[in-house]
């Protein structure tokens, strides 16, 4: 509801804004105080101003409130003016500019820090550490734990060749085998003359192949 749409009227103890339809009754409450405040500040429409003036003329309570509000406003203005009068702004601009000029620019501060002996060394160490962790080789792939045999050869007769036997715990056994064949049908053996006891055939999934070295 805009104030221009409203038709204000006064009744003792309250200010009513008459609108189309039911009346909007405003008692001596915060709304009335707002109307009084707006009246003091000259912000009311003609109808509202007329209603407030009628209330002021007819109701001493409204007058009393209005006088209090005016007095409070005067006191606030007096305090503000007194404070401003006491403030000394002489040389304020110089003082502000002096503070600004004493704070060097970021580039200047970095340049100054670079001259300190610890900064280049510490900075380089930090950069080097970061570069190392970024550039270092990737971690081993999962499942890459255990021993990996890169190569295995034997300076032995041709029929004796090394084979790699992997255990389920990731260990690797490198053993010399006689006559290994590609089918994996060989059995681990030992160098003569000592041989281990009876050996069970190796399960197919564990049989090493000579070509897997």
């Amino acid at each position, binding site marked *: 509801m805009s104030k221009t749409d409203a038709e204000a009227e006064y009744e003792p103890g309250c200010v009513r804004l008459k609108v189309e339809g039911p009346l909007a009754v405003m008692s001596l409450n915060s709304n009335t105080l707002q109307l009084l405040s707006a009246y003091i500040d000259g912000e009311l429409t003609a109808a509202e101003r007329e209603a407030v003036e009628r209330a002021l003329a007819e109701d001493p309570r409204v007058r009393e409130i209005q006088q209090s509000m005016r007095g409070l406003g005067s006191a606030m203005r007096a305090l503000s003016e007194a404070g401003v009068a006491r403030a000394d702004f002489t040389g304020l601009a110089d003082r502000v500019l002096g503070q600004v000029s004493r704070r060097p620019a970021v580039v200047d501060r970095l340049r100054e820090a670079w001259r300190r002996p610890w900064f280049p060394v510490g900075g*380089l*160490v930090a*950069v*080097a*550490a970061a*570069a*190392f962790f970024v*550039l*270092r*080789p990737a*971690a*081993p792939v999962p499942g*890459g*734990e*255990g*021993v*990996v*045999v*890169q*190569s*295995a*050869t*034997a*300076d*032995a007769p041709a029929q*004796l060749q*090394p084979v790699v*036997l992997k*255990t*389920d*715990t*990731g*260990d*690797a*056994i*490198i*053993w*010399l085998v006689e006559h290994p064949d590609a089918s994996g049908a060989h*059995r*681990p053996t*030992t*160098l*003569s*003359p*000592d041989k*281990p*006891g*009876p*050996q*069970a*055939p*190796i399960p197919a999934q*564990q049989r090493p192949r000579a070509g897997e070295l």
Partner: protein
Amino acid sequence: MTALASLTSFGVAALLAAAPVKVEVQVVQASNDAAHVDPGLEKMRQGFEKAGLRFSSYRRLSEQTLSLSPGKPADVAIPGKTATLTLQPGDHPRPHVAVSVPPLQTTVELGAGASAFLQAGPHENGQLVLVLTATK
């Protein structure tokens, strides 16, 4: 500035790559003498048995921890011969160790906690096994 940082980073990487690696080296005699397994060798026995290598006796003849530096060979005394271990240079995530235990020449990549068992030749009534384990 960038060049200096790069040089420093490569220097740090090189220092880390050149860091020594500790490898536990055991010499074990596996034989078919009276059944016996030294403490700590039961896992080895089980692994050998699953691989088809059945011995009844596993005796530890020696045990030492070597600090291997890249490219510097380290010798390990084995009955009747000498094994030579050399940490391979290079920025490897896991140590690569070249082992020469005649007639076997091999290079193994050691994962932490896992062992490489290398046949090292006959000895008395059994076989010598060189056991390499990278320590953490």
